[in-house]
Every structure is written in structure tokens, then in C-alpha cells.
């Protein structure tokens, strides 16, 4: 799998913290792998498990949901909703025959450009290790 496999990673970032965090990583000129495709959503609480499972079964090798730290949510408790949904997603990965490394939930604030770059690097490395999604060829 190490012969040039470049994973496709989808990162759902909330508008108020994580997307701003990604922006900060960019303006600070931090380096992180280009495998990540960022999708901006108003809140991590609006990322329904359907979107994640659809992404994973239709071509993505890994999915990240990034939201504000608990207590910081612009909509008060959207990120807590995201957290309970993430539990459901983690359970379902097994049902779909996918490795747990393919999904991750992270809290990234607008000030954490460093953390954003680090999480993306870690995620890409982890997914490179488990290889392409079994749904990719099918």
C-alpha cells in the first residue's frame, strides 16, 4: 500500500472555530499534507452521520469532523450533538467493514492553527497506514 497511495480525506469544519483554525494554519504558513479537502459547515452539529457514511462509501478514505471545544459552540450545544453522533458513527464503521482510523472527531479552536496542521498530518498518516477504502474499487 505504500507505493504512492494518496488518500482522499474529507474534513468537515465548523465555520466559527475549526475553519478559522484552518485559516490560521494557512496564514501562519504551516505545512500539512494536501490530501485534505475541507468542507465548511455552519456547525459541527449539522454533520449528520449520513454525510459521513456517504463520504466513506463513495470514495473518501477518511473523514474528520472538526468543531469548537465543548462550551465554545457558537450555537451553544451543536458540538455536543456532534459528539453523540460521532459515537454512533464509530459504532457503524464496523458494520460497514471500515477501520476505526478512517473517522475522527476533533475540537479545534480558531487559535489552534498548529493543532489543525498536526491533526491533519496525523490523520493522513493513519489512513495511509490502513490503505485505500474497500469501497474505492467497488
Amino acid at each position, binding site marked *: 500500500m505504500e507505493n504512492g497511495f494518496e488518500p482522499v480525506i474529507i474534513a468537515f469544519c465548523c465555520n466559527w472555530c475549526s475553519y478559522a483554525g484552518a485559516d490560521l494554519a494557512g496564514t501562519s504558513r504551516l505545512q500539512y499534507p494536501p490530501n485534505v479537502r475541507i468542507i465548511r459547515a455552519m456547525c459541527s452539529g449539522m454533520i449528520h452521520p449520513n454525510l459521513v457514511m456517504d463520504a466513506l462509501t463513495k470514495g473518501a478514505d477518511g473523514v474528520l469532523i472538526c468543531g469548537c471545544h465543548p462550551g465554545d459552540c457558537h450555537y451553544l450545544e451543536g458540538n455536543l450533538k456532534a459528539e453523540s453522533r460521532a*459515537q454512533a458513527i464509530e459504532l457503524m464503521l464496523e458494520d460497514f467493514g471500515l477501520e476505526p482510523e478512517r473517522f475522527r472527531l476533533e475540537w479545534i479552536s480558531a487559535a489552534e492553527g498548529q493543532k489543525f496542521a498536526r491533526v491533519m498530518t496525523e490523520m493522513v498518516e493513519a489512513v495511509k497506514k490502513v490503505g485505500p477504502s474497500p469501497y474505492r474499487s467497488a
Partner: protein
Amino acid sequence: MAVKIAEEWLATCGGCEVTILDIGDKILDLLPQLEFVHMPVLMDHKYFGQTGERETLEIPEAAVGIISGGIRSEENRKICEEMRKKCNTIVALGSCANFGGIPALANLSTLDELYQKVYRTSKSTEPHDTPHEGIPPLLDRVYSLSEVIKVDIGLPGCPTTPEIVADALTALLEGKPFSLPERSVCDDCPTKREKKAVAQVKRPLEQVQFTPGQKLEEVRCYMEQGYLCQGPATRSGCGGAEKTPRCIKAYMTCRGCFGPIRPGANPMVDMMGALSTIGLNPKDIEDRAATFNRFIGVTGRLRPKGGKP
């Protein structure tokens, strides 16, 4: 002139055929326009000629072919292919024909595991070799009709309801198109919803909280009471003209027999999302794959444990 109808049952219980009888008075208006040319559940009509004189399986030609049941064996497959050849319009009757139904829960196990359990390791069974002489072999899994042949009209439900059978037959006779609405059971459910669970996940044999005679509008949403209700991910239509879904009306949770709201939707993902959104713990659900795919185990929704897609 009467319209010729052929009816077949494959891997199914026969409940959907009973539904045709359940149409009631309306069937008296329909019957003079219908002529049943083949219907194993009702009349003696053999596949290889009445005395077995023919070599090939034959079903008489008909305008409408109604098939209930999924495809489990080689015989089922051949019969439904023959039906497709001889009938202009194919109607898939019931959840088994449309999504595999209860028999498709067997898709969770491999064929070997099934044989092992049924003929050898089940407690009430004297161990025996798997029978193989003079019977059609099973396919590797249960298939729905549309995975094997083209289906023109799908009438889901376990069993399906007299209203939609009558409506579909009437539409066919009048040459009008027939389809079910893309609405969820929740859209037609009258119970009170506040988007917040008031209890933990409960077992289905516990009783929903209500006082007898209480109006459904005043009863709290069953899911918010902690009972697993498939309503959010199930197509509506079982209530007929009255709209209130059948099981909800009887103070029971929806079990999902009408299948996904849209083709290609994944009810298990929808349900896990819905549960965690209102604050129930998704970890409390035993055997989520079978629970949320109870009637729809075909097209890879259910597969043996550890099986790759």
C-alpha cells in the same frame, strides 16, 4: 375483456396473498375485470404441465404478474425469470419481494453457517447431512426481485396493505401510473414530539406509556420514550386514507416494514443519527444491523460478520 393475472410466491410466508383477500368489498368491483391464469396459492397449476409431461418450466402469458417473496433458491430465480418473460407488468408484492424481508436476515450468516445450525447444531435437531437430492440448491444469499429482474411496481409492507394493493390494481386497470409518496412515517405520525428523549433505550417488550383511550396527539413520541421506532427512516403509506401509520395506531413502534423512504437510503445510518440526536445512547442498541435492517437485508445492507463490502 378481463385482464389476465399471474401470481407467484417465492421465499415468503403467504401473508401478502391474504392481503389481496383483505381488500374487502372493493375486490368485488375488481374481480369481474380480472382473470387469474396462474396462482399456486389458490389453484392447481403445475410448472411442467399438469402431468409433468413437459421438459421446460412454463407459466401462461399474462398482462400483470404479481410476485411475492424474495429469491432464496435456484427454483425461485428460474420462476421469477419465467414470470418476467411472460408478463407485461411485474408487481412486487410485500417487503420480501421488494427488500428481501424477514428471510433476508439470513444474509447475516454464510450458507455454511446456516446449514450447520439448521441441520446439525440446533438443540432440537438430530444431526443430519445437508439434504441435496431432488431439491433446488439455495443461492449464496437472499435476493430481492429487482436485483434479478426488472420490477415495474413495488408495493412494500409486511404484510402489505389492502388499500395500496387495491389502488395499484385499479391504477393498472385504468392505465394510470402508480407510486408511493416519499414521506416518512414520522411525517404521518400524530404523536407529540419535543426532540428530546425522556428515558434511556428500552426493550421492545416493555409497554409504551399511554392511558387506554388517550388520543395519539397527546401521547409522547415513542422514540422519545426510549422505544426503538423505525419511523424516521421508514416510508409512510401503511395507514391508507386515514394516514396514521398502522403500528403507531396500535400503540406499537414502527418496525420499518415499508422500507427506506428513498431507494438507496440507508435506514441504519438514519436511525443511528436520529437516536443520538435526541440524546439516546447508540451503544445501548443490541444487534443494530438486524434491528434497523429487519425487512431490508438485501443489496449488501446485511452481510456475514466481518464480511468486506
